[in-house]
């Protein structure tokens, strides 16, 4: 039943007003928020009849209907809303005094200052993603992989004695990036104690024996490392580096 804001009228019979009023109370109850188990998607708020008195009036969630025009905040206020951006609703916020809102999300990722970190990973010479140990809420030690949106890291060269010793990898994203023209950074650390080449520096970059489009795609990044001599000579072939690259750090960004 649709809510009727203009009831009861002075000329209404009480029997009619009773129906209208109970209808409004029921509609308000339903639209305010139904119990999550009954229908999570109806209503954003804790039900008015929730058994936990302290929870009444609070939110279960916040569904933001895409706005055609930015809602302007009043004095000392912030508006938080969604707007269409490239045919997708994205979150924005606008503060008192702002001429326009600022975009906070982009295609499922947070936008920070207009730049979106789409993927990152820290991995070792075996292609293992480095994990950080921390305590969970129950005090148990859990391992947190230092990666985001990474499906796999695969060595592109044959193993030597069962070990990958070459700095040549394909990093595959779990979710394709929105463009192949993303901004990437890639760095490597070589452990001199395990390097068969001394007096040389490692340069980390995309695979450089192919076209850019072969090395950097929306789905993968082929990471490569080259030997840089320190004496002005040229090493042939420059790469891939043979040695123990203990840490590789990769990031991919797009502009929101």
């Amino acid at each position: 039943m649709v809510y009727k804001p203009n009831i009861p009228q002075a000329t209404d019979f009480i029997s009619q007003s009773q129906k209208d009023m109970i209808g409004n109370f029921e509609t308000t109850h339903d639209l305010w928020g139904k119990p999550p188990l009954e229908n999570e998607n109806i209503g954003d708020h804790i039900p008015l009849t929730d058994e936990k008195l302290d929870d009444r009036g609070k939110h279960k969630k916040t569904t933001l209907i895409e706005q055609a025009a930015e809602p302007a905040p009043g004095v000392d206020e912030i508006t938080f809303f969604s707007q269409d951006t490239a045919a997708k609703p994205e979150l924005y916020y606008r503060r008192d005094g702002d001429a326009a809102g600022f975009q906070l999300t982009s295609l499922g990722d947070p936008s920070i200052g207009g730049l979106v970190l789409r993927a990152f990973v820290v991995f070792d010479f075996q292609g293992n993603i480095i994990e950080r140990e921390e305590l969970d809420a129950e005090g148990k030690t859990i391992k947190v992989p230092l990666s985001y949106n990474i499906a796999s890291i695969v060595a592109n060269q044959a193993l030597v004695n069962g070990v990958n010793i070459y700095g040549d990898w394909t990093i595959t994203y779990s979710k394709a990036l929105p463009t192949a023209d993303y901004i990437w950074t890639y760095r490597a650390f070589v452990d001199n104690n395990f390097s068969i080449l001394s007096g040389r520096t490692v340069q980390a970059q995309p695979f450089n024996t192919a076209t850019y489009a072969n090395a950097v795609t929306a789905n993968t990044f082929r990471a490569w490392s080259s030997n840089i001599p320190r004496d002005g000579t040229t090493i042939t072939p420059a790469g891939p580096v043979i040695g123990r690259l203990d840490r590789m750090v990769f990031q991919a960004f797009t502009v929101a």
Partner: protein
Amino acid sequence: MAYEPDIPQPKDQLSISQADLLGNFQGLNTQFSVNHVALDDTSGDAGKHKFVTFVQQANVPETKADEYIIFSQDQAGTPELYARPESNGTTYQLTKGGSLYTGLLPVVAVNFNQTAVIQGTALNVASVTRPGGTGRYLITFTNALPDNNYFWDVSGFDNSSNPVISQVTNTATYGDVVKTTSIQVDFKNQNNSLTTGLTRACVVCWRVQ
């Protein structure tokens, strides 16, 4: 008309109660529709939010177990969004200066090719030029940065089987190449010469928020 929570009273005349009830039903619909799709909306969206207006809070609201709150507080004269985890956990800032707050703010980002043509969309970049010919590029910012003590990262790609050494130009003082309005970068080959084979390059700069 302000919402009257204590009506109707037993001794109220019917005409008084009718006006009170009408006022409350109208007021509920009007006030609910400030941030929500109105209760009498028939599109199927009734009850959802149009947007959320956060009125600046003088004190940090409390949280119980299994709750998380978002609220607004003054931050240097401007309201910003904050969050607080369950059980009165430590409050942290969500936004600052028109961006999500992570402590480090990207201020410049660009991917360009050998001829200094920007590939894809750049952040705060007015132009990329080659002031010294092949291998040297000047990235000019659209909006100047507050100072030149920002973080930078330069990366290059050469498809001619040569490694690319990427760095800020090192033939000048730091202040001459890392400016508030631009940054100049070089891409060199193994022989420490500016490369002629650069295919793509990426530059990213950050500032502490």
